[in-house]
């Protein structure tokens, strides 16, 4: 099978654009709508990086048992775990040129990350107070953006530690590609501002305007006094942590905006996901994040060059009848292949001079995630 990017103008002797990204970047961010195979693609790119001799971390937000099994890591763990060597071997990834890369993976746990952030930024007293509230115990279920926010925090932590050459970040499916960048802002909207004023008693009278009184009344009526007390403790202890959190998120934004990072948009040939992917691209470009290219997943584009059952013949009547029956299925696939090839062209045009669009290799039998990941990794790199 020929590499999918052979026609891309940006190609040079060092390989496909994707291979260059995997070899050179420090952070690869995979964005895209839900259900297009982002997580699988992240794992495959991570494997590809390890094969190129780099120390790679794949951070995924998708607690998919199937992927965890494929990589031989536990579904829930307090931090990154190395993908065992025998798994790497089973995936057919031998180190290239004798350099030994490594692959760690973590199914991110928002609660673990958030607790670490609080421990790092807060005093022991603040930490004990916050961790003791009911609100903390359920914050990840109640507050929006926790997953996105903690993905950013985890990226900050691992990027500053220098344990990894490459971090592949699989972002949560979102309507907006950059939701996870906006998450700290949304989370602090939850944790500070006017809400804070309502719950954290301040010295001196008069800070509660009539709006504040009404809010206070509404909240205590609706939530009950016990919860309000809990909320007060939480917010009061938390207010000292915002400065540090903001520093972290500024650090993440800086790293992601630099040329050490690249954003990849994963899409499937379905109309809805294509539409979303193009919106994501516009969003990235508008905010000056380094958009690298599109990966068209589940595309049949490559089938276009495959032979048709009509090209075969047999003296056996049974075989001929089977070939005839296969014809309509083959015709449909040929039609889809042509459609997807056009799509790829459109994505290439959309990606522009600096970007690229690649079709991910087609996995005929996606029921073998192990073999599938290996094939993907080899072909992507």
């Amino acid at each position: 099978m020929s590499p999918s990017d052979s026609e891309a103008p940006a190609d040079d002797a060092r390989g496909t654009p994707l291979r260059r990204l995997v070899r050179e970047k420090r952070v690869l961010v995979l964005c895209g709508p839900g259900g297009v195979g982002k997580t699988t693609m992240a794992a495959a790119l991570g494997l590809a990086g390890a094969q190129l001799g780099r120390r790679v971390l794949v951070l995924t937000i998708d607690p998919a048992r199937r992927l965890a099994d494929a990589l031989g890591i536990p579904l829930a763990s307090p931090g990154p775990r190395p993908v065992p060597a025998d798994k790497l071997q089973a995936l057919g990834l031998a180190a290239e040129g004798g350099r030994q890369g490594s692959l760690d993976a973590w199914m991110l746990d928002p609660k673990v990350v958030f607790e670490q952030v609080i421990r790092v930024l807060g005093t022991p007293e603040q930490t004990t107070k916050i961790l003791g509230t009911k609100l903390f115990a359920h914050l990840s279920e109640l507050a929006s953006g926790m997953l996105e926010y903690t993905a950013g925090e985890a990226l900050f932590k691992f990027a500053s530690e220098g344990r990894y050459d490459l971090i592949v970040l699989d972002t949560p499916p979102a309507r907006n590609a950059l939701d996870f960048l906006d998450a700290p802002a949304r989370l602090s909207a939850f944790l500070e501002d006017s809400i804070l004023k309502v719950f954290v008693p301040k010295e001196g009278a008069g800070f509660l305007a009539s709006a504040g009184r009404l809010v206070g009344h509404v909240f205590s009526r609706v939530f009950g006094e016990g919860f309000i007390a809990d909320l007060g403790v939480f917010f009061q202890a938390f207010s000292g942590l915002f400065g540090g959190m903001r520093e972290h998120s500024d650090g993440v934004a800086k790293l992601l905006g630099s040329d050490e990072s690249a954003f990849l948009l994963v899409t499937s040939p379905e109309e809805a996901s294509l539409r979303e992917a193009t919106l994501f691209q516009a969003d990235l470009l508008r905010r000056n994040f380094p958009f690298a290219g599109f990966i068209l997943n589940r595309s049949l584009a490559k089938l276009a060059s495959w032979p048709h059952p009509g090209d075969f013949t047999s003296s056996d009547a049974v075989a001929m009848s089977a070939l005839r029956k296969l014809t309509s299925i083959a015709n449909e696939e040929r039609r889809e292949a042509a459609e997807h090839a056009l799509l790829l062209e459109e994505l290439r045009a959309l990606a522009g001079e600096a970007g690229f669009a690649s079709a991910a290799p087609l996995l005929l039998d996606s029921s073998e995630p192990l073999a599938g990941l290996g094939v993907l990794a080899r072909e992507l790199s």
Partner: protein
Amino acid sequence: MLIVTGKGGTGKTLLAAALARQASAMGKRVIVCEVGRSTPTASSLLGLLAPGLEPANVPQVLTETLSHVVLRGEDGVREFLRKTLPFKFMADRALKLDAVRKFIDAAPAFAEMGVLFRGMQLLEEQRRDGAPVYELMVLDAPASGHTLAFAALPETILKVFTMGPIATAARAGIELIRNPRATTVVAATLLESLPVSEARELCAALRLRGLDVGAIIANQVPNDPFTAEERTALDALLPVEVLGRRGLVRIEKAADALARLRDLGAPLVSIGAHAASGPSLLAAIERDLSGVAA
């Protein structure tokens, strides 16, 4: 309440529409619902059932026995506040406040609880003779991960709010969704390995939450036109890379996938792979479903 769920792209909206139409044709008073955050501008569910009609957050009568509504979290929150606060105007004023809006925005759990509350409120509506206005609510639920969070929500809420009006509403929610006589989930899936695995995980997780899985609908089940001899002949004759191979692999995998779905212990319904789209696809799916809805 019939909750239709499944991973994105499994056709759950079509199935919700088809199931609602069938139940309504059987004479049940049905309301079919979709979940929306703000007023939607286009609705594929409504587009299938009544092309050209604008979706709305108050029930719209489509036929004598079929209505449609968009369940919005903020409407539920408003209704909840109206019920909880001593004066209705307080609820309206509270919702206009920046702090309250931000709080609801930042804590989607409340908006989702609002969706559930709004649904419960519609189910409680009575006609003058005391009979319920709607005998069946068909909910085109958001994607499966979300449905799970939704199913777990009242319980989570109860852990944080052990008493007070929110706890009361959460308890009522749990009573509704955990009562197999009142609520059942229909899980839609495609036959590829990943969606099947996810459907299996979804069913297990739903049951763990005490929800009833009423049926599993396998969508786009390929038709197998080949005899065993023909398969053998094709395998001997053709290379791996040939047009039609993907279809052959699909047919082969479909049998395994159906077996994996069958052993979940819920009735399994197969829907064929139809080339149609829009209303004609809906009609085709309804034909596949006919008799099963009962």
